[in-house]
């Protein structure tokens, strides 16, 4: 069972994970990661821009690599785009497998790649001292490169 989606509206991870688990009968384990917009001091919103012809294709290629690399029964990969408020889910990745190591590692692998090698551009709306707010683009971090390097082989 493979379910890869870009969503333009708020979603509830619980409504995806239950049906996904049911759709993979006989599994040994399911690992799920849900990322939310952090309530960082002064951050009012997060906007994710994508480029449809590359972003969704890239997520499908990432899913292909996860299926090649791990022994999976199913993979769910759902990513929000658009403007989100603190506390809203951004991403949900769930992997079902016979053995836990495959499920956990597949989620870890997909998250590292979605966070720093997928075609998303992010900016935060931050409060200024004077009551206004301003958008700031988020740059790649050194940690992202380290996270990705773990999967090089």
């Amino acid at each position, binding site marked *: 069972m493979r379910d890869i989606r870009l969503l333009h509206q708020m979603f509830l991870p619980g409504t995806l994970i239950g049906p996904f688990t049911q759709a993979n009968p006989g599994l040994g384990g399911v690992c799920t990661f849900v990322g939310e917009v952090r309530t960082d001091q002064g951050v009012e919103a997060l906007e994710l*821009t994508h480029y449809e*012809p*590359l972003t969704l294709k890239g997520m499908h290629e990432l899913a292909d690599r996860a299926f090649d690399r791990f022994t999976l029964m199913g993979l769910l990969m759902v990513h929000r785009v658009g403007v989100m408020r603190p506390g809203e889910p951004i991403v949900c990745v769930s992997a079902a497998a016979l053995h836990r190591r495959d499920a956990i590692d597949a989620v870890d692998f997909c998250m590292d790649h979605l966070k*720093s090698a997928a*075609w998303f*551009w992010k*900016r935060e709306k931050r409060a200024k001292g004077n009551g206004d707010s301003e958008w700031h683009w988020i740059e*790649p971090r050194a940690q*992202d490169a380290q996270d990705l390097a773990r999967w090089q082989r």
Partner: protein
Amino acid sequence: MITIVFLGKLADLAGAPTLQLAAPLDWAGLKAALPAALAEAIEDPRNRVAVNGALLADKAALQASAGDEIALLPPVSGG
């Protein structure tokens, strides 16, 4: 016409997410048609270029004709 799509902070530099330019366009023609700050920004080796959704291995080899869509892609954000 050719549609130019600006992603991420390139859209800020361009002042708009897209721009229409006359066909045909090669890399030199594209840079000549853009404001200087934008032309300089897209020279950054970390900026990638896609034509109709296909990434170019070498952006200097750009060749676009009428109806094509050129996407200018700055580095993606981190996690």
